[in-house]
């Protein structure tokens, strides 16, 4: 088949057969009006044969017979705006209107594997592959036109969906040049890309095409998706971690019509024709379990991490002389702790699976549509190409919430009952059983001299190891049902940014990789960096206070990267920063007011972000009120400024929630913070004023914008609280009890 069979103006029905999410744009009244053709799901019809090799141009784009263009992207839109940003890049580079682009994402049968949508690489990597594909395609289009017209290629230009003489006059439309045919070209890294000075689409705050559907209830989330004959299921979890199923009393649900109990080793679920019956059956079902494997006492966790046997030590960074510290320098040591946290998605995970004897189709909101193909093929014992995963929107997952697990639950159940099955997790399932952002324990020791020169710095971190070659994390369903999967741990790149981005005589960063983690870990937005930056940037302020220096001045004195200096100076200006050491003069007032700042050069090679905060701390209650957050953000070339701004707002507020109130609570059996009162989130009344300045660098490469602004939030807040009160917070979350304890001079340091 040729790609022209997927025409952009096809009916919704036809798209439904194709089984992908397609977004179209129309131009109305001179303004770009996005319209969303949301054709999601249903792989009833066979997927058309597609080139899927990520090295091939045809994997990413095709010129259709009518001159429109279809773009295929293996990365998915989780609400971060790739559905407009990627078409912006493709349309710009090709030289065609955005309204002529049809966009298809995240379907293993249709889109190239561009890796998980993770690490804030959607644009920086996924988008840049598509830019290169479009640049290669444009070069080919110009060359074909040059040959047909008998003129040198340099005299031609691609714009408005045609290749024309630069001097003017009509040219040849893209459809005439290649419509409906393959390019048969590899991505050419040397194909010239357009000069940013000529951009007409990239850099514009164009609206996201899925927003109207999300505001009117017409978008099909995975939670809303149904196929004919689909049954509804609820999972039954053990009462204690590691408990095994001894017996199930099926008679306990006999009174509920049509309920089927599925019991495979420790995997237990109920399936019914309608959802409410499944809910009632899950509540009614009686089962007997063994005792669990046990969890450490919550308040012992930092000590447990430090004492974990078999940790592997790895020196991550070592710079500078081995010289002893010079006399006169002040030395400090501090311990910081970041607790386990949940992804805490507003919608509990959900998935639909249709598993047949020889093939499987799974509709999932996972960020790893492609990445999960191997995992699912393995435990279903099917060839990889017989397992199709199709992305549908879900509640935001910020790394890896329960989406993958729910999909595996659905797949196991669909095979067991021989029908398509929809699994909807409960709130308790989601907060109790989603894989957690891991706990991080960080020790820092350092020395500063009277002139503010950092003489020595050593960071030690205790964090769960990442198992080499682990494709995903182990999922609950294969584990419980005894199906094949690779064991191991993965929390993402949690060891980055353990070293200060400032001039330092000597730096060492040592990771103590732990073999186990009390609860199953997974990447959680900006993996590890919020904790590492919290420790590093808090410690910098502790050094500044020890030396009696203004914390802003100490940063500016130590920074070398001009883009780093620019964001820090920008925030200082936004906050009308008064130079003085912390804590400030009002530290003993009933309500102390203060300001703090923190900075990150994300992963030492990506975005530069500085965040400043103004806070008020009530001494009697220990309550922190964040009054204002100022943020300067430089992620290189900005594709869509409104999209970047939304990501920065979200990063700041989500991390503020994590720092102020979030900690997974557990007893010795299981997670106990399984509703919104025991695992509270930031609400409207807690939301501060946000001032964000985006620094655009159109001639630099675009860098990720979905994570970096998370990282400095914790330290900016801790530094502001110290400035306001003189109390140093080293344990997240900053609950009123912890603040009061720190104000009372009690150890604000985790017990280790």
């Amino acid at each position, binding site marked *: 088949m040729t790609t022209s069979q997927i025409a952009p103006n096809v009916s919704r029905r036809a798209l439904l057969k194709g089984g992908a999410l397609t977004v179209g744009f129309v131009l109305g009244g001179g303004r770009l009006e996005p319209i969303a053709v949301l054709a999601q799901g249903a792989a009833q019809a066979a997927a058309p044969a597609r080139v899927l090799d990520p090295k091939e141009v045809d994997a990413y784009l095709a010129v259709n017979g009518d001159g429109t263009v279809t773009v295929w992207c293996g990365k998915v839109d*989780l*609400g*971060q705006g790739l559905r407009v940003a990627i078409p912006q890049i493709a349309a710009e580079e090709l030289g065609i209107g955005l309204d002529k682009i049809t966009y298809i994402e995240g379907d293993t049968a249709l889109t190239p594997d561009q890796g998980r949508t993770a690490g804030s690489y959607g644009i920086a990597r996924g988008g840049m592959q598509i830019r290169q594909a479009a640049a290669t395609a444009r070069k080919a289009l110009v060359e074909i036109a040059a040959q047909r017209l008998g003129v040198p290629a340099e005299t031609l230009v691609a714009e408005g969906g045609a290749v024309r003489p630069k001097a003017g006059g009509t040219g040849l439309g893209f459809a005439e040049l290649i419509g409906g045919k393959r390019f048969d070209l590899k991505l050419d890294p040397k194909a010239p890309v357009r000069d940013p000075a000529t951009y007409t689409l990239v850099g514009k705050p164009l*609206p*996201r095409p*899925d*927003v*109207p*559907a*999300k*505001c*009117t*209830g*017409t*978008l*099909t*989330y995975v*939670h*809303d998706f149904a196929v004919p004959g689909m049954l509804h299921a609820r999972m039954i979890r053990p009462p204690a971690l590691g408990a095994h199923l001894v017996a199930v009393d099926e008679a306990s649900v006999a009174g509920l*019509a049509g309920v089927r109990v599925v019991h495979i080793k420790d995997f237990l679920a109920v399936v019914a024709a*309608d*959802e*409410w019956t499944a*809910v*009632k059956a899950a509540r009614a079902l009686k089962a007997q379990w063994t005792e669990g494997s046990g969890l450490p006492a919550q308040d012992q966790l930092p000590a447990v991490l430090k004492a974990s046997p078999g940790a592997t030590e790895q020196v991550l960074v070592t710079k500078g002389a081995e010289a002893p510290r010079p006399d006169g320098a002040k030395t400090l040591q501090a311990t910081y702790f970041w607790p386990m946290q949940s*992804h*805490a*998605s*507003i*919608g*509990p995970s959900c998935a639909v699976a249709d598993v047949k004897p020889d093939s499987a189709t799974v509709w999932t909101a996972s960020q790893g549509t492609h990445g999960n193909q191997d995992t699912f093929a393995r435990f279903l014992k099917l060839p990889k190409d017989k397992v199709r995963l199709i992305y549908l*929107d*879900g*509640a*935001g997952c*910020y790394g890896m919430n329960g989406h993958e697990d729910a999909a595996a639950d659905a797949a196991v159940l669909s095979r067991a009952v021989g029908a398509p099955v929809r699994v909807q997790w*409960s*709130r308790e399932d989601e907060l109790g059983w989603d894989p957690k952002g891991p706990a991080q324990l960080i020790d820092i020791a350092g020395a500063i001299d009277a002139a503010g020169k950092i003489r020595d710095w050593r960071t030690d971190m205790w964090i769960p190891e990442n198992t080499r070659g682990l494709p995903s994390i182990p999922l609950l369903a294969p584990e419980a049902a005894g199906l094949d999967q690779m064991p191991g741990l993965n929390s993402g790149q949690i060891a980055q940014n353990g070293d200060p981005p400032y001039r330092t005589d000597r730096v060492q960063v040592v990771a103590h990789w732990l073999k186990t983690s009390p609860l199953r870990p997974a990447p959680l937005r900006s993996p590890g960096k919020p904790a590492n930056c919290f420790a590093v940037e808090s410690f910098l302020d502790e050094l500044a206070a020890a030396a009696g220096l203004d914390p802003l001045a100490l940063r500016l004195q130590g920074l070398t990267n001009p883009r780093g200096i620019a964001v820090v100076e920008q925030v200082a200006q936004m906050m009308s920063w008064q130079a003085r050491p912390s804590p400030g003069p009002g530290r003993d007032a009933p309500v102390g007011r203060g300001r703090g700042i923190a900075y990150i050069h994300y992963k030492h090679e990506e975005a530069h972000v500085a965040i400043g905060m103004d806070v008020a701390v009530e001494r009697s209650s220990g309550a922190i009120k964040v009054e204002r957050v100022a943020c300067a953000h430089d992620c290189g070339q900005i594709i869509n400024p*409104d999209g970047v*701004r*939304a990501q920065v*707002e*979200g*990063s700041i*507020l*989500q991390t503020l929630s994590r720092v102020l109130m979030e900690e997974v609570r557990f007893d010795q059996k299981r997670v106990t913070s399984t*509703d*919104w*009162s025991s695992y509270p*989130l*930031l*609400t*409207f*009344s807690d*939301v*501060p*004023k*946000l*001032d*964000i300045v985006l620094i655009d660098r159109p001639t630099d490469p675009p860098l990720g914008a979905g994570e970096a602004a998370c990282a400095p939030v914790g330290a900016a807040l801790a530094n502001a609280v110290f400035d306001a009160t003189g109390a140093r917070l080293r344990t997240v979350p900053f609950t009123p009890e912890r603040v009061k304890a720190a104000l009372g001079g009690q150890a604000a340091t985790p017990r280790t």
Partner: protein
Amino acid sequence: MPRYEIRLNGTSRTIESADPDQPLLYALRGLGLTATKFGCGLGQCGACNVLVDGKAMPSCRATVAETAGKSITTLEGLGTPAAPHPLQAAFIAAQVPQCGYCTSGMIVSAAALLRETPKPSEADIRAALDGNLCRCGTHVRVVRAVLAASGQTGQAGQGG
């Protein structure tokens, strides 16, 4: 099967439910009205909010039997892509949703607020929406959109 008469998005509807305790949420979604979302089932998040006789209520906590004879409005009943409610139009203009899972409940809560208080202050909006959780951090835009929908050009922070 027992039948319950309700007014749903302006039309009279009969809901059949074998269980009078079935939450309204499941009944609505079973009718294909999937804008209303399941978030917790505990009345703690607002994702399932609908208007019951003009007041915002979590549909996960109201049973079908309790809502018999009442007038229910879901997000679908407020407006459509072609003819959006002023709040929907304002949410679209402010590009509020990220994942959008909380958006339906937010718009419904805001609609209840504007019925009572056509020109709410920023503090009124925050108070009215305090029971609506958002994990993506769209709060600043939500407040701005509600101000705009009520014909006030207030700036809800400058973030965005």
